[in-house]
């Protein structure tokens, strides 16, 4: 025993703080989160109800709306962010290294601020008055005024636009780094064959970047699934007629406004399963193709 402590004591001391906090605030809560989803737990406590919470969710139109809104937001946002990041990274690739560094920083700067702060600005830009900036700009083109965050038809559009109008700087940096590491020989061979710039991009660059694309798709999908601050700030936590209700906003309302911890945990488990399903699908999509 003393020999064991003498040999390994320091190792355990080194991992002890991290592992203690991890156990108390991650490991136990993960287990507890799944267990809560099987109870009708409220502020006052609760009993085991099996899958009743999940049965409730399948019947709940508000939950359906939240899932629908979250999926719509995710599909549009992830598609836009991946495409924008790929195009911008491709455009800065031919520049000298100083130019690349400058643009990477330029595109990353808007992302250092919190989602709250960014959402506050967008709430101001997309306000329903004619003097709102979005309306003022569109009126130059003879359009509008729109109700934006004041209308159940346009609120979700405003939330989506607030995300996709910003260049995804993280994706640009990652694509740009990956492009720097692509083998030159393929491009030289393509030059010999007389391929143009677009053809080289389409048939060499894009396929070779697939691992980065996959990684970004998984990360951006999981981030988009968790959209909350924008909705909370721009549309007062769900919008007119719950038009912008998302899963995380609904989890927050269910747990911390109505105190229904069990039902909220079931909603969180559904979100987790959605994230796992998407990650599995995306990895299969990567594997299904030719290896490079």
């Amino acid at each position, binding site marked *: 025993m003393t020999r064991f402590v003498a040999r390994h004591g*320091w190792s355990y001391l080194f991992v002890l703080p991290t592992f203690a906090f991890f156990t108390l605030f991650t490991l136990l809560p993960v287990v507890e989160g799944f267990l809560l989803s099987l109870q009708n737990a409220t502020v006052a406590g609760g009993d085991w109800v099996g899958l009743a919470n999940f049965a409730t969710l399948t019947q709940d139109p508000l939950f359906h709306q939240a899932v629908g809104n979250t999926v719509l937001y995710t599909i549009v946002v992830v598609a836009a962010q991946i495409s924008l990041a790929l195009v911008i990274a491709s455009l800065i690739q031919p*520049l000298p290294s100083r130019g690349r560094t400058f643009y990477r920083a330029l595109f990353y700067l808007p992302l250092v601020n919190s989602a*709250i702060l960014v959402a506050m600005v967008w709430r101001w830009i997309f306000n329903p008055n004619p003097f709102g900036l979005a309306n003022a700009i569109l009126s130059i083109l003879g359009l509008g005024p729109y109700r934006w965050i004041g209308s159940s038809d346009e609120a979700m559009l405003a939330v989506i636009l607030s995300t996709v109008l910003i260049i995804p700087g993280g994706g640009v940096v*990652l694509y740009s780094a990956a492009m720097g590491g692509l083998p030159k020989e393929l491009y030289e061979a393509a030059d010999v064959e007389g391929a143009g710039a677009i053809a080289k991009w389409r048939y060499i660059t894009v396929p070779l970047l697939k691992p980065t694309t996959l990684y970004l798709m998984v990360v951006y999908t999981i981030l988009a699934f968790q959209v909350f601050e924008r909705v909370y700030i721009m549309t007062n936590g769900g919008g007119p007629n719950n038009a912008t209700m998302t899963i995380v906003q609904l989890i927050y309302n269910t747990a911390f406004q109505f105190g229904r911890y069990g039902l909220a945990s079931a909603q969180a488990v559904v979100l987790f399963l959605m994230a796992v399903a998407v990650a599995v699908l995306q990895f299969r999509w990567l594997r299904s193709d030719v290896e490079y």
Partner: protein
Amino acid sequence: MLPSTRALSLHVVLLAAGLLSLFPLYWLFLTSISPAQFVVRVPPELVPQEFTLRNYQRLFETTPVVRWVVNSVAIAGAVTAFHLLFDSMAGYAFAKRRFPGKNLMFWLVVSTLTVPAQVTLIPVFLILRSLNLLDTYPGVILPGLADVFGVFLMRQYIQTLPTDLENAARVDGASEWQVYRHIILPLCTPALAVLAIFTFQRYWNAFIFPLVILRDSGKYPLQVGLATLQGEFNTDYGMLMTGAAIGAIPMILVFFAFQRYFVAGIRIGAVKG
């Protein structure tokens, strides 16, 4: 097309995209330094016409915004300091040391990475309630220390360090703590810088967790405080944008001071957007 015209049009496109992305930030600052009638002006003024600090004065007088900034610095600073110490210790043990249970521990850590924070939010809230830590600073700070991103980062980095130095120090009679403190830690400075920036940014920007844990508005970090301004000032966009400006300035300064660490951080797996 001439190569130079092509390069020029490329720069025009890229700059336009960059400026469009920066526009909300510009609009925020412009609103904050403009007089009250600015917000209802049609058509909107895109360049400053009149400069005033009236919004800032009103915000400082009517809200505890300074207090919120102090709280944010304290909370994000404390979480960051603990992470630098604990993550480098654990990263060192996972990278260089052998001990029974190491793989099991590491596997447990990895297996929870896919679980979204919303699954643990309610249980963590209930645990803090049973520990009587709701509405306290430790209640916001301690759960932040369960975050394992930094352990991965430090482990990856320390694995690349040579082992000879450690062994030489041990031969010279250094204790295990001294090996960590005087050999490993000084070599980790670049990784610690990335970790510090990312942890600070993450907890400076954190919202839903402090929102749930804290009740007393005097304890709010800035992000939660800003969200409450919305209810208080509703459509007083000058005041709201001034609050947002106060939130934006610190991170922008940090970004310009430590830009290369941000870019390094994204490349090791800390994408945010």
